[in-house]
């Protein structure tokens, strides 16, 4: 129960043990991945054969292709980054427009639209993927049959992956940015207008700076969600595989510890983003 009520000793000990076991459960897989990136053996499995950096630095000459010489893996990291940048830019832009639309404008059908904006979050990613795949193919077929145009960007490939991920990440960006815009004190804008500022100047010097934490936060979340997305991407991917798809393929075949090496970098990057966001969030909360 709660600290102000008497708690029997076994309950205190039990709680502590449970929290400990829970934390081990949470971190065991991650620690394992990290540790076996350094094992001097061709497979990520025990026993421990000693420490090596081969899975980072090795090349054909050493017989072990490490992360920095694995051109396929590096290319997939590049692909994921490009996709994530596009998704982030699109999602934050559309999310900002949506936030102003929902918080500031009045128009018929607003309730329906706000409900519709949440639906991408309750549609399983696989289904978002196949529906966009089928629809894009239908348009591409139509263009090809009726007009003789080959719209390659509507065939499975990176442009479709960007659109597929954007379709639900935009909803998350909209929620994040709307939440902050809702708390904005509009008298600040009115004061600036009274003092003779133009609407554009008010937006640029007052409203957008206020939204900055939400814009940065939603950009970071959008980038991370895009980079890590699997379900939607799997259905829309063409010949260039993003990192998650590439890793999935190799994991099914039984891969070398080079996957652990790339995972270690992913973990460090996500932890850095997460901690920055948490710290920023706490500072914003104290203001």
């Amino acid at each position: 129960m709660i600290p102000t009520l008497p708690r029997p000793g076994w309950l205190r000990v039990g709680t502590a043990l449970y929290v400990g076991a829970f934390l081990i459960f949470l971190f065991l897989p991650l620690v394992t991945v990290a540790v076996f990136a350094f094992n001097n053996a061709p497979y990520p499995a025990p026993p421990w054969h000693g420490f090596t950096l081969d899975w980072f630095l090795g090349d054909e000459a050493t017989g072990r292709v490490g992360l920095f010489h694995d051109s396929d893996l590096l290319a997939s990291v590049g692909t994921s980054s490009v996709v994530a940048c596009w998704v982030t830019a699109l999602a934050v832009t559309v999310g900002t427009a949506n936030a102003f639309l929902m918080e500031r404008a009045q128009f018929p059908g607003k309730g329906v639209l706000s409900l519709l904006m949440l639906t991408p979050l309750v549609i399983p990613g696989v289904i978002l993927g196949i529906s966009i795949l089928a629809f894009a193919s239908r348009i591409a077929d139509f263009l090809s049959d009726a007009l003789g145009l080959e719209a390659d960007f509507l065939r499975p490939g990176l442009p479709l992956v960007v659109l597929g991920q954007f379709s639900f990440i935009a909803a998350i960006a909209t929620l994040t940015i709307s939440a902050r815009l809702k708390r904005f004190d509009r008298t600040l804008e009115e004061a600036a207008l009274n003092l003779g500022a133009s609407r554009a100047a008010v937006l640029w010097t007052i409203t957008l700076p206020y939204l900055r934490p939400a814009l940065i936060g939603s950009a970071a979340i959008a980038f991370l969600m895009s980079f890590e997305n699997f379900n939607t991407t799997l259905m829309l991917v063409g010949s260039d595989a993003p990192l998650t798809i590439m890793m999935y393929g190799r994991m099914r075949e039984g891969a070398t510890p080079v996957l652990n090496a790339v995972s270690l970098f992913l973990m460090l990057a996500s932890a850095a983003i997460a901690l920055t966001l948490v710290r920023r969030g706490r500072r914003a909360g104290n203001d």
Partner: protein
Amino acid sequence: MPELARAVWSRRLLLTLLLAPALLWLLLLIVLPHLDLALLSFRQRVAPRQFVPSLAQYRTFFTEPLYWHVFLRTALMSAGATALTLLVAFPIAWTIAKLARGRMSALLFVVCLIPFWVSETVRTLGWMILLRESGVLPQLLVHLGITAQPVELLYHDATILVGLVYTSLLFMVVPLVGSLESLDNALIEAAYDLGAKGGAILREIVIPHAAPGITAGCIVVFMLTLGNYLTPTLLGGKNSLWFTEQIYNQFITRFNWEQGAAFGFLLLALSTAMVWFGLKVSGQRFSDVMRRA
């Protein structure tokens, strides 16, 4: 009054400009693709590029035992994983919201969140290294003398459940902590002073108060589990028999889009039905739940 007319006109223009991205996004990427998917699922190919409207895809689903077995199995295992996630997450959420104080509580919360910032692919890789026959835990069991030979811990239903619970924990812990923090300790103390035992307090005070958080968590976890692909296929291997895998097979491997579309719609129907049911049972609004999650 040209002044007023211009003001109205510029307001119209602004509204149109703001509406355009939202409408393009929702119509082109959500509404139309799903209508198209529905059309696709209700037709049948009779000759190359010749289609007739038909219910054949749905008939196949109900007459072919494999398909509806996998569907039912996916639904039941998702429900099981959701219940397990709730059981595992509740004590942690309680500790964060009620037992730990100040910095300790915030720290514990952040520590619980960190693993979920890491890609699901990486987390699944970790479980595979831990559980496969040549992996860490089977070797450890041999070492401790519990089993004579390394046992294969991958490719069981229980493995899939562990993986799914692991992946889902965050989405349960966050709404639970939110709803438990708003519970006034004085209510619990009052109940205790009036002689209520732990079980009664939990049943009469804590659970009714936390119901919105519990529902939000369960809805999100069930939905994500149902639509998961990576964890069941990697941890379950050939035995996973997960419905999203069937959709993938029809769409990508067999190129039978009509059948795949029908499967997709069935999964969407189940997912939507559960969300709706959860909201009805707890009497909540959809938008509130999504915001909470």
